[in-house]
């Protein structure tokens, strides 16, 4: 019996060691993450977080925002958003408002956060060309955005240099001064200034952890259903067998 279990235990241990040793090899070789806490600008009162994980030339962006302007012309408000690159890698202060209209426009913010490196669109093109395409912008006051796409070289370089900045655009026009409400967008003249001005901004910094996506599957469920009815039944069966043995013994004694 001892010999047999030892015989089983050795290959089992070997298998386990092999699995344990294989684990790191199965993992993605490198995984680097960048994180940003998005702060409100232009008095948007919004907030959010962004994680960008780069592995094998692909970027996975996970973003959660809340408190943005909810509607625009009766429809969910489209919030164009980008990773800006090549600037100072910071978010603009009120000093950026050179026109003194109380609003930091996208153009006024550019010396701080740079130009568009990647458009965080919901589908299709992620290049700067899609920068003002409202139909592929996430919409509404609160949204979770997650997308994986090939990362272009200029955005990667800016991430590594610590100068990549996430900017989410689109203000509630009602929060602007009467004069600013009448202004046209500096980017898309057919739109009001509020529609394209920055609402959230955060610099992407290197993370200490290569961020996993989602939660961890750390259970098999074996104890989720409470007492093991099979074992209880087996125990009951053993009691019956014990009683049967005693009855048989008594019978034998009488004979």
């Amino acid at each position, binding site marked *: 019996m001892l010999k047999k279990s030892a015989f089983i235990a050795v290959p089992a241990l070997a298998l386990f060691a092999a699995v344990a040793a294989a684990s*790191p090899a199965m993992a993605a070789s490198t995984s680097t993450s960048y994180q940003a806490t998005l702060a409100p600008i232009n008095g948007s009162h919004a907030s959010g977080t962004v994680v960008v994980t780069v592995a094998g030339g692909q970027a996975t962006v996970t973003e959660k925002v809340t408190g943005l302007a909810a509607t625009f012309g009766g429809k969910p408000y489209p919030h164009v958003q980008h990773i800006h690159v090549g600037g100072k890698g910071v978010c603009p202060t009120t000093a950026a408002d050179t026109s003194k209209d109380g609003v930091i426009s996208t153009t006024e913010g550019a010396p701080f956060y740079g130009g568009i490196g990647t458009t965080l669109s919901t589908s299709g093109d992620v290049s700067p060309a899609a920068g003002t395409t409202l139909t592929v912008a996430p919409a509404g006051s609160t949204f979770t955005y997650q997308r*994986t796409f090939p990362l272009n070289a200029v955005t990667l370089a800016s991430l590594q240099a610590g100068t990549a900045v996430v900017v989410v655009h689109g203000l509630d026009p009602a929060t602007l001064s009467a004069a600013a409400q009448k202004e046209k967008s500096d980017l898309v003249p057919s739109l009001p200034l509020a529609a394209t001005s920055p609402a959230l901004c955060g610099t992407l910094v290197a993370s200490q952890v290569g961020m*996993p996506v*989602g939660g961890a599957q*750390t*259970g*098999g469920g074996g104890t989720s259903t409470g007492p093991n009815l099979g074992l*209880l039944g087996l*125990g009951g069966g053993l009691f019956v067998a*014990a009683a049967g043995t005693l009855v048989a013994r008594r019978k034998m004694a009488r004979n």
Partner: protein
Amino acid sequence: MRVRNENGSVGGHRLMAVGATVLVLAGLGTVAVGLWGNSPPPQPPTALTTPTPYPVPGSPVASPVTPAKLTPARLALSASVPTRLVIPAIGVDSHLIRLGLNPDGTVQVPPLALHSPAGWYQHSPTPGQIGPAVILGHVDTYSQRSVFYRLGDMRPGDHIAVTRADHKVAVFTVDRIGDYPKADFPQLQVYGNTSTAQLRLITCGGDYDAATGHYLNNIVIYATLTSTHPA
């Protein structure tokens, strides 16, 4: 029930008595295992896991995630792979394997086998380094309790000792406990940058979804490095 010595079948009687005793003991043992071995894992009380909103910079409530006792940066250690995890409060003593990422970007977990150890996520700092070191373990297997079965019993103030390959032990003290739906896992709160040496212990919690074969929640223990000593 007295057995006379002159009875020829005394051996048989004795054997049967022993057999009955063995059967009763086996029955008791089986019932005990059936009851004890499979009671659902302990869950942290909701009073301890009430979510704190993620801090908004510039707002007056910007520091609820900061542990009460800040570790001086000088307490932090350089990098060294962790080899063993000991948690006296819940009877855990496990060697540690290395875990990476699955192809879909989710975190790897240890093998779902009996006596499966806990594992250190190799894309996180090593325990004792500045930043959040991440250790994962199963709450149960398909049939039995596993290494982090009692993680939900941990409380602020409990100690966690991690032995490293450099023969140093990093001792962490629990700050708080999180209980999150996997569908809305607070990635940045759990894995985000920290200015001190931190530890995150992660296992499963909440209800079990038999359709997917997964628990719906994750329990996360947040701890801060409070001392180090030679192994």
